[in-house]
């Protein structure tokens, strides 16, 4: 299982904070975005259009990253901490 986490405004776009996806031993962000598109087409598109950043196990990754079973994927809108 892969855990997908949503933050800030993305939570209202997908109507959830987190979900679990079973996409086999190895998958890609593209496949994850397609799985997400089934319930939230807008969210899937934001990922494919690189309008959100993605971390895997708390490190930022590019769009072509390989995701493994057990990984924690987070979808991150642009940060706005600090002031």
């Amino acid at each position, binding site marked *: 299982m892969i855990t997908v986490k949503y933050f800030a405004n993305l939570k209202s776009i997908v109507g959830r904070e987190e979900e679990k996806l079973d996409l086999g031993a190895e998958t890609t962000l593209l496949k994850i975005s397609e799985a997400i598109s089934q319930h939230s087409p807008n969210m899937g598109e934001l990922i494919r259009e690189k309008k959100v950043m993605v971390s895997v196990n708390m490190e930022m990754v590019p769009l072509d990253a390989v995701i493994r079973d057990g990984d924690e994927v987070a979808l991150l809108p642009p940060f*706005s901490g*600090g002031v």
Partner: protein
Amino acid sequence: MTTATAEWKVRIQKEDFNVNDEIELMKKVSRNIGGVTTFLGTGRAISKGETISKLNFEHYPEMAEKKLEELRQKAIKDFGVIDMSIIHRIGEIDIGENIVLIVAASEHRGETFKACEWAIAELKRTVPIWKRETTGSGEVWVSPTP
């Protein structure tokens, strides 16, 4: 790259902090500290022309702390400061309240200014924290500004 830190040095917390207390903690790190630069970010009443009544910060737990610790270690390595501490508050924050504090300490002042200014810019760019502003027209998530 990340190693264990004394827990007070990077923190994300709901509670307010006291700048003097944080500086005193830092001064205990070395008797050779001669300069301490701090940056404190506070909640402004007006942002981009809109009147703000309240702020709310959310973070990605663990990742945000990890990124702060990476910032801290890079500041020590790249700028040669003796040490740095970074605190960011989350949850509801009123106008005028403290949001974020960076403390950079060293023998001389030059590197403390550079490290502190770099750290706050880098925090905004690399640490997963998000701000929601409450204005007359409701609550909005904020797009980042440099």
